[in-house]
């Protein structure tokens, strides 16, 4: 199917009344939960997951995607108005965005973020339209060795891009792989790490672990310093960027979009790297680098554009290869599997309506965000100022119901409690849980592809280096690992990532 027919199919899928309505509901709910301080996209998606259970697959996916970028957008609003980043990638937005808010320019900062995001979202969606079919047809030629190398690249990138030490991140990834191996081994049917429990035969549910570690773990962490939580929301005045603002932010938005589109596709890098690089680039080429950190509108527009462009294009590896690039995408795969869809290169040919409907609805969702959020910003500001002692019991209830309703299993609820405590432990020990989450889903895939590769080559591991694509991927991964030794990169990494905590 060519692109034009695909888009037509997409429009007819995405604009059915129910799909349109659920896209709207997803964007609205996602923003509403995403603006709540301390709730990142992962916690938001897992809390809102039950709302998608009764829906047909395409509608559910459209709504989930809406929740995802709604929550991301909501996170930026909180970052600007409250100086509280909901997730690592909006840390950059707080730097200049909150400064602008302090100077009474909150509305213009929000508008810059919204316009940048919308433009980047449009370009990102177009990029998916062009690149995803190409990659999917290319992916059909990938053998197990290529997949294995890509998975390694994803895991290594996510470790390098985590705050804290590389060794800790490596340990977290290994721990995640072990968690992923719990359950029945698909090749031999042997039960591994189940300790005789029938509940563990199907493995730990990925959504349960993510909800526990990110959702409940964050609640426990926030209650730790409940007394010192300061709630101050900057007032929002005029929402219209001045002519001067337009002039200053248009080029940064273009550059941010370019960076975001490209980096979003890189497995493991995703949104975080995109927004940091875009900010760094603007600061570097600006004629007034001293204004950065003091309320430069370029410092809001560029990373927000990059962040949203990457949020679109990180769907590409997930949809075409079935490989999640970020922890959030891993959760999306978990949610798709609940719906009975296995993402991979075949999804485009076998379920074209699903794929094209999603792509078109992404663009519609971005359009909705633009028109929904700027006028409603007063309402979001009210939501942000709801005190935490009302919020967290509500969050706990939604998470508990959500986790229970995945399999109607009480066992999952207990597991969430357990992983909540573990998530708290890891955060207290300075260990970022993102590599764990990604490894839990990528680990078993890596095992499977490694097995297949070595079965074909009769145990000869040199195939990973004789296939050009696999070799290239491994070289990139090795370069990334080496780059961390370079003092200059180390400095940038520490500066960029330490504030993400």
């Amino acid at each position, binding site marked *: 199917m060519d692109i034009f027919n695909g888009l037509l199919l997409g429009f007819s899928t995405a604009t059915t009344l129910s799909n349109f309505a659920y896209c709207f509901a997803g964007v609205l709910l996602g923003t509403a939960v995403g603006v709540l301080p301390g709730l990142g996209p992962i916690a938001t998606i897992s809390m809102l997951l039950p709302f998608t259970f009764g829906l047909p697959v395409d509608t559910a996916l459209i709504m989930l995607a809406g929740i995802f970028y709604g929550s991301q957008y909501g996170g930026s609003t909180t970052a600007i108005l409250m100086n509280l980043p909901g997730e690592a990638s909006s840390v950059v937005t707080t730097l200049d965005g909150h400064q602008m808010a302090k100077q009474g320019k909150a509305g213009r900062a929000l508008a810059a973020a919204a316009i940048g995001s919308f433009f980047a979202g449009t370009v990102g969606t177009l990029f998916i339209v062009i690149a995803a079919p190409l990659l999917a047809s290319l992916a059909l030629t990938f053998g197990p060795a290529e997949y294995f190398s890509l998975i390694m690249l994803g895991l290594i990138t996510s470790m390098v891009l985590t705050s804290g030490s590389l060794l800790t991140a490596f340990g977290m990834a290994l721990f995640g792989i072990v968690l992923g191996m719990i359950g029945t081994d698909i090749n031999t049917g042997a039960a591994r790490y189940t300790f005789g429990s029938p509940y563990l035969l199907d493995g730990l549910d990925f959504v349960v672990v993510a909800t526990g570690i990110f959702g409940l773990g964050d609640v426990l962490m926030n209650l730790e310093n409940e007394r010192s939580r300061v709630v101050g929301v900057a007032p929002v005045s005029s929402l219209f960027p001045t002519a001067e603002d337009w002039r200053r932010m248009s080029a940064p938005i273009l550059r941010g979009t370019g960076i975001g589109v490209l980096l979003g596709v890189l497995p493991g890098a995703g949104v975080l790297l995109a927004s940091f690089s875009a900010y760094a680039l603007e600061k570097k080429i600006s004629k007034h680098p001293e204004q950065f950190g003091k309320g430069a509108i370029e410092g809001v527009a560029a990373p927000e554009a990059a962040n949203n462009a990457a949020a679109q294009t990180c769907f590409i590896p997930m949809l075409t290869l079935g490989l999640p690039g970020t922890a959030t995408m891993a959760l999306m795969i978990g949610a798709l599997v609940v719906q009975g869809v296995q993402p991979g290169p075949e999804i485009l040919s076998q379920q074209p309506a699903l794929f094209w409907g999603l792509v078109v609805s992404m663009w519609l969702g971005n359009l909705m965000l633009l028109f929904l959020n700027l006028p409603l910003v007063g309402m979001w500001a009210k939501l942000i100022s709801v005190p935490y002692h009302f919020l967290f019991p*509500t969050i706990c209830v939604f998470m508990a119901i959500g986790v229970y309703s995945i399999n109607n299993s009480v066992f999952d609820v207990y597991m969430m409690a357990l992983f909540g405590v573990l998530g708290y432990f890891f955060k207290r020990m300075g260990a970022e849980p993102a590599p764990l989450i990604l490894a839990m889903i990528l680990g078993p895939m890596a095992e499977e592809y490694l097995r297949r590769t070595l079965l074909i080559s009769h145990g000869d591991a040199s195939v990973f280096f004789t296939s050009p694509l696999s070799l290239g991927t491994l070289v990139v991964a090795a370069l990334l690992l080496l780059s961390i030794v370079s003092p200059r990169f180390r400095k940038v990494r520490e500066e960029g990532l330490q504030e993400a905590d």
Partner: protein
Amino acid sequence: MKLSQDVLLGLFFVVFGVVSVSVAMSYPFGTSGRMGPGYFPVIISSLLVLTGLLVLFRSQFVQPEMLPAIRWKPLFLIPGAVVIFGLAVETLGLPLAVLLLTILTAATSIKFQIGWKAVAGSLAFAALCSVVFIELLGLPIPIVGSWLRVLGF
């Protein structure tokens, strides 16, 4: 050895890794051309033990970061309340389970005061959840749990 972040994390990795290796040893290992179910787990868990040891080793050279005081109350009460929700959701039904979870988690806040407002708020929230999740979304969760039905509700 002083307790620091690295010491605790290293110990966690080592202990978990050792348990994981010893469990995985009981699965057939196979050869690299024909891997058994034990092959990958043994390698990964051994690497985990090694990483844990390196983290412990590193902790001897880095200035230990002080572990801040822990508020034990939420740490026990919140996971505990989630477990109670799990126990109650099928036996007592969703509204009562939500009520228990709301009140028990809210009680961990330093701002919590028991009063008619807290009770009324939780009751309203429990009712709202039941309507949204069971009536509107149609999730198969009982409103009246199995224990209460035995009693004739």
